[in-house]
């Protein structure tokens, strides 16, 4: 689940995929997770950080993480 190299992210939550030329916008939490992923953090670390910071249920976050991975895969942002 490593993020592709060279993915450009901006403070505003914009993402540019230089491999495909596509642009994406994300919500604040998406930007936060992306930056953690860029720093090479693994899923468990990221989830723990989110749970600590936000009022999320672990079950909810687990469901949403599944969905998040699908979104990244769909957007061609993962290096597999």
């Amino acid at each position, binding site marked *: 689940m490593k993020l592709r190299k060279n993915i450009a992210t901006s403070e505003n939550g*914009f*993402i540019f995929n230089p491999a495909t030329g*596509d*642009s*994406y*916008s*994300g*919500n*604040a*939490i*998406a930007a936060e*997770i992306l930056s953690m992923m860029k720093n090479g953090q693994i899923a468990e670390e990221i989830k723990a950080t*989110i749970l*600590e*910071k*936000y*009022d*999320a249920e672990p079950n*909810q*976050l687990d469901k*949403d993480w599944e*969905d*998040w991975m*699908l*979104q*990244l895969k*769909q*957007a061609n942002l993962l290096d597999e």
Partner: protein
Amino acid sequence: MEKLKYERPLIKKMNTGIPNKFGQKAAFEPVKYIDEVPVKQLIEKFGSPLFVLSEQRIRRNYRAAVRAFSTRYPKVQFAWSYKTNYLNAVCNIFHQEGSWAEVVSGFEYHKAINNGIPGEQIIFNGPYKDAEALNLAIENGSLIHIDHFDELYNLITLCKSHHKKPKVAVRVNMDTGVYPVWDRFGFNYENGQAWSTITKVLESGVLQLAGLHCHIGTFVLSVNAYKAAASKLCDLAMKCKSQHNHIIQYLDMGGGFPSVNTLKGYHPSGADAIPSIDEYAEVITETILNAGFEKDDLPLLILETGRALIDDAGYLLGTVVANKRLSDGRKATIVDFGVNVLFTSFWYEHKISPAQDATQHTEETVLYGPLCMNIDVLRESVNLPLLNAGDHLVVHKVGAYNMTQWMQFINLRPAVVLIDKSSNVHLIRQPETLEYLQTPELLPDYLKIVHG
């Protein structure tokens, strides 16, 4: 440290060449109250899904429509189109406001009678009126609108045994510039059949030709089509006077005025925007007033507007069951109301609002109903805030046709409540129960035991 509000992470592709969303934010604003009653409270008390009708809105719509016509024309009468919504509470709101009843079947005819409507204030339309109801209509002096020759001759025969001379109208279909022409109902103007029917009625000696009727279509966005229709009806009425010295008492322009819903696959430009009821009133009344009737012969103008009077007074409340992501990456949301309940989702792109606060992030979503059937799709694509299971939704403008065309299928049909002008909530149709549904069922004895 207090934790921040969580929202699921979301990225969205920034597309080129698709409509932008700016200026449309209002569409995602939560609707937490209907006529000052909290949506949440309604669902807690009456269950989900739930149809909600606003009495205030119904009466306001009705009065605005009456005003639009009666300020322009001296003799106006509305008749409530039962098929649009025949819950008795709804019908009686219209009847209290002074509306007659417009029915299209024996079942609806009886409903109107049971609601206390005098026979002579019931307009009986439609291609099939069963013998029992037709006899009753003759007996009660209702206005019978003839749809085809078989009906005409049938009626002439029936009259002979009744020794009554029922008031009838001839339903006319015509080319008004709106297509397809609804030529399956009534007699055609252009090919002379309408006139030939009028002559037959007048010469029958047993029928009183009281009116002429047309109903040119549904969701008719062209004001000019009504102008064409009114002018053709007036032409026939004038001809009745000049050739038979017979005065037509009323012109029934039917219904067909659109509500402010969006038809599926219909991408109007501003020019096709929905005209106001005043614009329809203006062309219809102007056409009749300028047709050349003598002052005393000016016919009563009857309108059978249904959809435009009630659509925006109806809401459907529901609840999110689940979220999922489809194989092609699209988001899907499952809700607890399906196409069997929201029948109009087959032809409308209903506006749907969240019923609780949400952030400004939205996601393109396929909205599925709860039925285990592939056809149960409410919106192929709708922009909604990030919803979670248990969140509530409000579907707008569902007052017309849903509470009559809904189907009991897989699930039971939900309750309907009416909010009165003081924001009191009245249950006007209970949710269906298994017992209610099984009452007419009969089980042969040998099938009563399943484990021999």
